[in-house]
């Protein structure tokens, strides 16, 4: 049986080489774009972080904060890998900074015995990965000793809606592409069925089941889809390597040693599985309507 299907598919490729190759090219292009979207999507947050200004997070501390509470907050910040340059700003430093900004108008303020320093002490840090920020903030706010947390809220909201928009647009495009791919697979199958009408009829007459007749088409579709996904990933990785070797990521993406991550193994495996499934399912949809046992006679009458 395996032998039979191998022969059948080999014959398809031998007899319709150009049609099969064309289909493969289109599917490869589809999956290149597909995996390209996936690549950009998973690198989006680090790209945007690099392109936008560095965002600073400031945790304002209560005046009556205890030593161990302060160190607890500090350790949360230090254990977060997406934060850098964590530093403590005391009440006095905060006022000094304030005075620096205000100029010399209030230079006597600190020495004034009547002055009760209204500025809180704080912890500051630089954010390198926006997508992690909302979770971090919600983790910090309930800690004892924290008065308030401030960060580039507006920017983050824009960032979130931008990523959402990007995801939606790419999902739409990908569905469109896959729809086109389905149409192409359908056409190829229609073509091979017309070419093989006589053969299919004879197979029916000698007792082939519907599945037996359909399976070679489905297997060939799965093969095309799988190879399309393989080539898509290969083309993308070629582009990735080329881009890395010729210009280096830092040149394009502006300093700061940004690293683009290639698709993860899981993403690649998912893509290949999707290609396989897409090809098989597409073929199944296209071939479903053919062959009903009596069709041998119905094709003639």
């Amino acid at each position, binding site marked *: *049986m395996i*032998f*039979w299907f191998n022969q059948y598919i080999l*014959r398809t490729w031998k*007899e319709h080489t150009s049609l099969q190759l064309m289909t493969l090219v289109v599917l490869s292009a589809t999956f290149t774009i597909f995996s390209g979207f996936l690549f950009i999507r998973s690198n989006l947050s680090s790209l945007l972080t690099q392109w936008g200004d560095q965002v600073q997070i400031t945790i304002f501390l209560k005046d009556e904060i205890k030593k161990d509470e302060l160190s607890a907050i500090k350790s949360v910040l230090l254990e977060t890998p997406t934060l850098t340059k964590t530093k403590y700003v005391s009440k006095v430093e905060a006022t000094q900074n304030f005075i620096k900004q205000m100029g010399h108008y209030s230079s006597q303020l600190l020495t004034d015995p009547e002055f009760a320093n209204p500025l809180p002490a704080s912890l500051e840090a630089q954010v390198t990965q926006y997508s992690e920020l909302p979770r971090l903030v919600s983790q910090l706010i309930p800690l004892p000793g924290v008065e308030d947390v401030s960060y580039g809220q507006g920017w983050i909201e824009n960032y979130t809606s931008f990523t959402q928009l990007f995801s939606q647009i790419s999902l739409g495009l990908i569905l469109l592409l896959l729809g086109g791919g389905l149409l192409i697979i359908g056409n190829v199958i229609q073509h091979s069925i017309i070419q093989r009408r*006589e*053969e299919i*009829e*004879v*197979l*029916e*007459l*000698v*007792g*082939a*089941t*519907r599945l*037996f007749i359909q399976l070679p088409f489905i297997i060939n579709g799965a093969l095309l889809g799988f190879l399309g996904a393989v080539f898509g990933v290969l083309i993308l990785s070629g582009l990735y390597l080329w881009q890395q070797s010729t210009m280096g990521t830092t040149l394009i993406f502006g300093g700061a040693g940004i690293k683009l991550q290639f698709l993860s193994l899981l993403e690649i495996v998912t893509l290949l599985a999707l290609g396989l499934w897409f090809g098989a399912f597409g073929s199944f949809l296209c071939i479903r309507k053919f062959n*009903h*046992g*009596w069709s*041998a*006679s119905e094709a003639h*009458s």
Partner: protein
Amino acid sequence: MISFLHTYKVYQGNVIALRDVSLQVDKGEFVYLTGPSGAGKTTLFRLLSAYDRCSSGQITVANYNLNKIKPHDIPKFRRSIGVVYQDFRLLKDRNIFANVALPLQVQSESQHLIQSRVSTLLEQVGLMAKSHFYPSQLSGGEQQRVAIARALVHQPSIVIADEPTGNLDSDLSREIMNLFDQVSAQGTTVFIATHDQELIRTKARRVVRIQSGSILRDEK
């Protein structure tokens, strides 16, 4: 084994190809169907191989009621019969071996069994030396013998042959008929359409005569 009851077949254009045909063939019988060209022999065989449906009446073959057979039972039914079509219906782009192997391939038999059964049959029809030829490289008579080999290779319980000696000279005809005799001797029901009266006369068999779609005589 085969039973027709008041069967009619009307083609498009009101051509009545079969008219009130009632016929019973028992298991293991050897029956000739004869009549002039256009009498309805091929039509009768088409109905009995579930290639086409009758217009009215009842047809039962090998315990399958062909009026009510479900689509997914049709392959099972067709595996229990072997048919030699008048126009052979060989696949042009497969060699002789592959053509004869088809009924076994669709049943997913092992390559080993396919190899031995197909070789045996090609030997019996005298085409072993040409097993790698393509149908277009064979004469009409040789193609006919390929069609016969394909109808027998899966050892069906009923063999139907539509003019299986139509393209053969009398020596080859006799050989092919001997082959059908052997199959019949193993208990297979054999039903052969022919207008070769010479062939019918050489052996004492049941002969069903058909004309203009009606059974004229049925003599054992």
